């Protein structure tokens, strides 16, 4: 996709978003080593074009469900970086009041429904949310991100079939980063061309280069349009790669440094930046200014998280049940 020149502003906004994810996570990794963040931390670095490209094709009222690797998705959806970082610090100012941490970012007001750490488990929920939208005659799409590893789970099969059978508006986004922890695609799936799973559920599907933001945008817009016009689900496979370890506990024994380096050449961020520069939709000066803004915003996020407070231990069992038992 060539961005139109009227899209100068749009291009800059996208560059800001994709950059924000990268810098936010780099900082998070740093804070992790300082033990400010604990538990599992799964970085999206290398894969940012997917969330950025897909979510820009959605409307604010569309629902999003994601995995434990969801900082990027939350940021693009417009959740405040400070509130996300505070969550990762376990502070009550965090988006899930600190109870969820990195894997469980939630913001109902922004139709961001987590942050699920059981691989594949959010797919049926996404179908249910789309079913509700259909029954309530809302024009909402539900967008569900998951990895190629998740597609081996039984729930992928059940969710795909249900969505197609019920004809509900779900955008299934398979983030195929070639690995499920240390297990390569070829050890996970007999059929490695994942988009071919679509037709076996009578579901429209396509594959896109997930390292190319503009391509992801175009493919997503097409998919979203198709969903909105037909009311039916769609499977979009985004081929991508994670540059970093699976989580902070991963020695990366299962892949060569060389392979990672090859993929780094396809880094979606310089690629998109250079495309904007080439199309003259941005100047180098503006790029530098954006970088600075991002840095500033990440700094502010850390400050917000740092100054946040821990929930009193007396509140431990709050939210196990609703306070107001009968609605």
């Amino acid at each position, binding site marked *: 996709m060539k961005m139109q020149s009227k899209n100068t502003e749009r291009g800059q906004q996208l560059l800001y978003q994709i950059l924000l994810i990268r810098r936010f996570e780099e900082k998070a990794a740093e804070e992790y080593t300082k033990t400010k963040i604990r538990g599992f931390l799964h970085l999206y670095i290398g894969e940012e074009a997917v969330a950025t490209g897909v979510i820009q094709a959605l409307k604010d009222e569309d629902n999003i469900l994601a995995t434990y690797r969801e900082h990027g998705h939350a940021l693009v959806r417009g959740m405040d970086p400070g509130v996300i970082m505070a969550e990762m610090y376990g502070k009550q100012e965090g988006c899930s009041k600190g109870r969820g941490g990195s894997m469980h970012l939630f913001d109902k007001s922004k139709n961001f429904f*987590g942050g699920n750490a059981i691989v594949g*488990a959010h797919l*049926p929920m996404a179908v249910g949310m789309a079913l*509700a939208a259909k029954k*309530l005659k809302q024009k909402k799409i539900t967008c569900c991100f998951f990895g190629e590893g998740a597609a081996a789970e039984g729930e992928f099969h059940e*969710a795909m079939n249900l969505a197609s059978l019920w004809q509900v508006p779900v955008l299934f986004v398979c983030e195929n980063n070639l690995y499920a922890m240390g297990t390569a695609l070829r050890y996970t799936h007999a059929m490695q061309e994942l988009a071919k799973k679509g037709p076996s559920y009578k579901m429209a599907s396509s594959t896109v280069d997930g390292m190319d933001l503009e391509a992801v945008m175009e493919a997503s817009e097409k998919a979203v349009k198709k969903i909105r016009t037909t009311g039916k689900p769609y499977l979009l496979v985004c081929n991508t790669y994670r540059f970093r370890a699976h989580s902070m506990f991963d020695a990366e024994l299962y892949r060569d440094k060389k392979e990672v380096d090859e993929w780094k050449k396809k880094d979606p961020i310089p690629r998109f930046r250079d495309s904007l520069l080439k199309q003259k939709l941005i100047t180098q000066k503006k790029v530098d200014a954006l970088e600075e803004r991002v840095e500033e915003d990440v700094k502010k996020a850390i400050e917000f998280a740092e100054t946040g407070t821990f929930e009193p231990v007396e509140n431990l069992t709050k*939210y196990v049940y609703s306070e107001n*038992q*009968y609605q």
Partner: protein
Amino acid sequence: MSQTRKITYREALKEAIREALTENDKVFLMGEDVGRYGGAFAVSKGLLEEFSEERIMDVPLSESGFVGAGIGAAMAGLKPIVEVMTVNFGLLAMDQVVNNAATMLHMSGGQINVPVVIRMSCGIGKQLAAQHSHSWEPYYAHVPGLRVISIGTHEDARGVLQAALQSPDPVVIFEYTSMLNMEGELPEETIKVDIESAKIRREGTDISIITYGAAVNKCMEAAEELKVEGIEAEVLDLRVLRPLDEAAFLASVSRTHRALIVEDAWRSVSVSSEVSARITEKAFYELDVPVKRVCGAEVPIPYPLHLEDASVPQKKDIVEVVKKMIRP
């Protein structure tokens, strides 16, 4: 007492579903064979014709999938009644119930409610053998975030669903296949039951028989038999298996000074073990004799009638243990 009417447990369940569908258009019923088949046990028979395919949804064999979809629909503003045909298939959806339904509110810091109602037919007594005779009440009762109800009476069959649909939190309801054809009496007027407290089904002074589900009836019958022998047993129907109405059973035991817990489920790590442990913790000095339990035998339930019968508490087992507790 006001006018009453005769009704089967099945019909009471159906009336409750019908009422819910009529009163709130956000309610719908989904499950395997709830529509065209008429419900595996005819509980929802006729509802598809009365309502529509949108309100009575047949779903494919995909327990994790459709229970998860019910959870999602509840998160998105609907009031799904999800029927898992029998509790035996519930393990396939256990992850959805535990890790999503029960956890979501807390994990999201209070933002996201999951007001789903999950109904499961259950219990022993139809010679369905090992894979189809489970009593999973203990599993669900273990999980914080769930409200777990066991329907041991006609009153509850008619009244629990309405209360459950008003809960902002996920409710799991156990219904008992062996009771479907049983007739009972219900008042003509609307029933209001609460899903927060246990209920004394029979008052007594000599012993508290604490139970739930299909065992309630067996305990009532045992109590009648014991009466003949001059023993007045109180029968307490726990009804809510989570969160347990501890105050109710502690109060009863404090009056009778003897406690027997009766449960069809396997004995080890069961609801009755929990009730026993709590009585020990909080009413130890009220006890005249040790708390006892009569529970399911620890065996995959065998098919033949005589072995099946031997696998779950029978009236005579209850009577026998009570007598020993009172006249050692």
